[in-house]
C-alpha cells in the first residue's frame, strides 16, 4: 500500500502527458482523531518526474496538497516505449515510486 504511484504517459502530437496518482495521507498535522489525539504531520515534500533518467518536472509540496495526490505534466522529446518514472519523498523520509512506458 505505502509508496504506490499509478503513472500513465500518453504521447500525442509530440507531447507526452504524464498523469500520476499517488497513495499518501497528506496529513497536515492539524487534525485530531476520534480520541482527540493529534494526527502527526505526514505529507509528501518533493516529487520528481523523469523521462529516461532526465528530470521533466520537479515539485515541492506542502501539506495542503490533497490526500492521495495527483500530478500531471507535459514534455516533448518522448517516444512510445520510453520509461517515465515518478518518485516522491515525504517529511518522514519515506519514499514512493511508480513507472510506466509511454504509449
Amino acid at each position, binding site marked *: 500500500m505505502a509508496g504506490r504511484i499509478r503513472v500513465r504517459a500518453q504521447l500525442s502530437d509530440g507531447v507526452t502527458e504524464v498523469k500520476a496518482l499517488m497513495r499518501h495521507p497528506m496529513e497536515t498535522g492539524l487534525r485530531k482523531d476520534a480520541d482527540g489525539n493529534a494526527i502527526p504531520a505526514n505529507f509528501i515534500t518533493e516529487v520528481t518526474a523523469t523521462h529516461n533518467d*532526465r528530470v521533466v*518536472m520537479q515539485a515541492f*509540496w506542502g501539506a495542503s496538497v490533497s*490526500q492521495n*495526490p495527483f500530478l500531471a505534466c507535459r514534455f516533448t522529446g518522448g517516444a512510445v516505449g520510453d520509461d517515465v518514472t515518478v518518485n516522491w519523498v515525504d517529511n518522514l523520509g519515506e519514499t514512493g515510486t511508480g513507472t510506466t512506458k509511454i504509449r
Partner: protein
Amino acid sequence: MVGYEESSGLSRRGLLRAGALLAAVMAVPGRVWAAVKRPDGAFKAEGIDAALASIASDAAVSDQIDLETPDIAENGGTVPVVVNSKLPGTTRVAILVELNPNPLSAIFVVPEGSDAYIETRVKVAQTCNIYALVEAGGQWYQASKETKVTLGGCGG
C-alpha cells in the same frame, strides 16, 4: 553545487535520499538550479501577503497564465487546479490558496523541454481566490481565480 551544501544538516540517511533526488536533477546540463532545495520557509508563511512575499516581492498580473479551477468545488479537500503558462521562458509555477492558514501549496520547477503546464489537486479551506504565480525570464507574474467551496449534505 547549489543545494547540496545546504543539506549537510540532514542525517546520513536523509543526505543519501536528498542526494538521490538531487543527482537526478543535476543530470540536466547547462542550467543553474536555483530552486533545487525546497523553500521550507515559504511553505510555513502565514497569510496570503506573507506567502506571496516569500515567493516574489513583485508579481504583475498576466493574462498569459491560464489558471483553471472549478467555479464550485463539491468538496474543499480535493480541488483540481490546472496552470498553463504561455509566458516564454517559464521556469517555475507556484500555487497559493488565499485563505488557507499557510497559503503556499506547491511549487513546480519546469525544466527545459517540458511544457509550462501542471495540474494537481489542493485543499481549499473556504471559498477564496486561488493564485498561480509564474516565474518567466527572471520575473514573476500572477493570475488568480475564485473557487467556491461547499459543505456537503447534512454537514459531513
